[in-house]
């Protein structure tokens, strides 16, 4: 992958929240026009990586470049200009609760584009049709199921025709049908519109089906990278454990704790 080809380039990033170290020398690159997956056990900082890419957090050292610009050095107006080119799908949808589904999708257009009402309506209905929720345009977010809210959020994320779409755990809590719909949507958005996609997830099967390139994070850095087939062939214990979903391996299932037996025998628990 050449440097010019990378839309997002994360180089040697160190990041800590208080005393908790999240990244120690993280290197990740997302290629233009590809679906890149970022996988890893819970708590490995996948969402933190997104925050660094979107300029919400700043790394203590290292460089995060998006479209060739160092995100940490951008002033607010420049950062906002950059964000107009990037769509982000939140884990919970993050719809604006006082606006209807239609107005939620129309929100970025009303804020950034001075469009005549009929054009705006056509655009919004087109995006809602793409996610299968044109009929729900008049509903309020409180009336939607979790999967529907995520699809509305996706319509909102693509309404400005972004060059990059970032999905934060798009499959969590979805039924198999909604999950299949979202997988197909991500693929078709990527294929038809050429949108560069970054998918943060730990659903190995769904990711394997669609990602062109995957990164596996663990303990603050990339432990494996490559196509899903390459990751499946990887021999490292941590990769094999994650890809096959077994509780025993280098990644502990239990949060660090004192000895179970001793704790049960203690009269009071501090």
């Amino acid at each position: 992958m050449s440097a010019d080809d990378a839309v997002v380039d994360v180089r040697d990033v160190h990041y800590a929240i208080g005393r908790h170290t999240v990244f120690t020398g993280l290197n990740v690159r997302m290629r233009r026009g590809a679906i890149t997956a970022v996988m890893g056990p819970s708590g490995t900082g996948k969402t933190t990586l997104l925050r660094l890419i979107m300029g919400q957090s700043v790394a203590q050292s290292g460089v995060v470049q998006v479209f060739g610009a160092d995100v940490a050095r951008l002033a607010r107006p420049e950062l906002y200009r950059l964000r107009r080119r990037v769509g982000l799908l939140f884990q919970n949808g993050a719809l604006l609760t006082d606006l209807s589904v239609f107005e939620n999708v129309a929100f970025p257009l009303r804020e950034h584009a001075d469009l005549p009402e009929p054009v705006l309506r056509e655009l919004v209905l087109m995006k809602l049709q793409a996610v299968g929720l044109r009929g729900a345009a008049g509903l309020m977010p409180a009336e939607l199921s979790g999967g529907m809210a995520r699809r509305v959020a996706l319509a909102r994320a693509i309404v400005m025709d972004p060059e990059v779409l970032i999905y934060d755990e798009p499959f969590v809590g979805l039924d198999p049908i909604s999950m299949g719909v979202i997988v197909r949507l991500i693929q078709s958005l990527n294929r038809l519109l050429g949108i560069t996609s970054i998918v943060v997830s730990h659903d190995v099967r769904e990711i394997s089906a669609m990602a062109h390139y995957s990164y596996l994070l663990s303990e603050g850095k990339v432990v494996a990278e490559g196509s899903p087939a390459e990751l499946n062939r990887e021999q490292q214990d941590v990769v094999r454990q994650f890809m096959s979903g077994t509780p025993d391996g280098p990644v502990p299932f239990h949060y660090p704790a004192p000895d179970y037996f001793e704790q049960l025998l203690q009269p009071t628990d501090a």
Partner: protein
Amino acid sequence: MSGVSQRRSMALDALAKLGSVALFLLRVLGQCIPVLARPRLVIAQIYNAGARSLVIIMLCGLFVGMVLGLQGYQLLERFGSESALGVVAALGLIKELGPVLTALLFAGRAGTSLCSEIGLMGATDQLAAMEMMAVDPVRHVVAPRFLGGFIAMPLLAAIFNCVGIYGAQLVGVTMMGIQPGTFWSQVQGAVGLRDVNEGFIKSLVFGAACSLLAVYEGYHAEPTAAGVGLATTRTVVTSAVLVLLLDYVLTAAFL
């Protein structure tokens, strides 16, 4: 930690908070002008903070005026000057009770609603989502609410005053038998533009203070249920103390 260093760190915390509120005020003020270009956002908030507080403001104004009528009449009767009831009620309300009580009610009714609304928007990632859509939440959410509160507060205080004076008249004239002509001519003779200005400026300052505190606490609330609850409580308590403190300062300044 020793007592001295504890007090020192508390004082430093308070100063840091004051600085942070002042910086936030500058950021909000910077966004107020672009927001004025979209009056629909501000009008909706004037409706929220103002029109929706009308019932409680009018009810309280009426009762405060009636109590003022009763107490004032009792007191003035001792000196045989019950005809001056109009002066006592009108000046007391316009200069002092109107702005202060309206501000306290405003903090309880509109301030809490502003704070918890913004706090919940933060807790449910709505503010972050706006940031990600390159929309500044301070411009879209905070500034219209601040302006709405700032504009609504003097209007509410004016309505409180009017209803209050009517309440005093109700007691003084209808129940206690003061001549209506006497009551109103006393009001007309005693209340000058300076008194109205004093009340108006007070209500502007209180409106700015209460609205700023509410949006600040909401915007900086911890994104949890307990965090939003705590921020709402802090809004009311700090607003109440600040309003009374500012009232003393302003009253002293107008003397």
